[in-house]
């Protein structure tokens, strides 16, 4: 029997947990356009079910900005939008490719069980 058929989604079993790499999630959220904090939280929740807390989100934003992977845009009202930089896109692509290779390899191993 292929063990990947018995996939359990985090929504069904919270013990499994959600994917949590806040900087990567923020980068992925900004990949389809600039967003401010609340829009990022909602987008990430839709993307993978993880709802980042305000401190976690701004911790990730600070790290990403220091690394030059995202940059702030002029503030709109009291909201501060951010956008991904060219370097950020390159890093996101590389990380997701590695993750994809890792996932494929992991699933192949499970299938061979």
């Amino acid at each position, binding site marked *: 029997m292929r063990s990947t058929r018995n996939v359990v989604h985090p929504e069904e079993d919270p013990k499994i947990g959600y994917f949590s790499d806040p900087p990567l999630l923020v980068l992925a959220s900004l990949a389809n356009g600039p967003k401010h904090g*609340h829009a990022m939280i909602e987008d990430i929740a839709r993307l993978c079910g993880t709802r980042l*807390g305000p*401190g*976690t989100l701004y*911790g990730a934003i600070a790290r990403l*900005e*220091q690394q030059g992977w995202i940059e702030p845009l002029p503030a709109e009202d*009291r909201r*501060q939008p951010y956008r991904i930089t060219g370097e950020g896109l390159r890093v996101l692509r590389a990380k997701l490719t590695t993750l994809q290779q890792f996932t494929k390899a992991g699933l192949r191993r499970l299938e061979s069980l």
Partner: protein
Amino acid sequence: MNPRLAHLLTCLYPRPWRERYGEEFEAFLQSGPGDLQAMANVVWSALHARLIPTRGNPMNQSPNSFRAILKHPSAFLPLAMSLAALGVLACAAIYGFLQGAGGIIRQPDEGTAAHLWQILMAGQLTVLLYFAVKWLPRAPKQTLYVLALQAGAALASMAPVYFLNL
């Protein structure tokens, strides 16, 4: 979240972090839910920021800070144009001294230097207007400082023309 509580929670972060993100983080907290989970998350993140400061370059300036605004072309172009106009006057004066005229040589049709000065001074007005319209609503205080700097540079460029009756 309660504005006072949002301010208190923001104060838990280290100073360099607050100087860069404090204002926007406080606004972000105020517009979100003030539940216990969010508060615990902020307290934990603030502690983390104190124990393990964000690595990399020093904290970037806020996009609405005086220095950050000054880096925009519409802010520094009028300054550069005023200084260039002053430079034109200086060059004309040096040329006059070298020619033995003891200063700027007056020409019947005002001359190239005068036309350059006029173009530079008049040309910056549209840039200045664009800058004021764009930035005054976003960051009034910082924009006024930049406008004062631009006005100072323009006056410095106009002063020799006025006092020397050029």
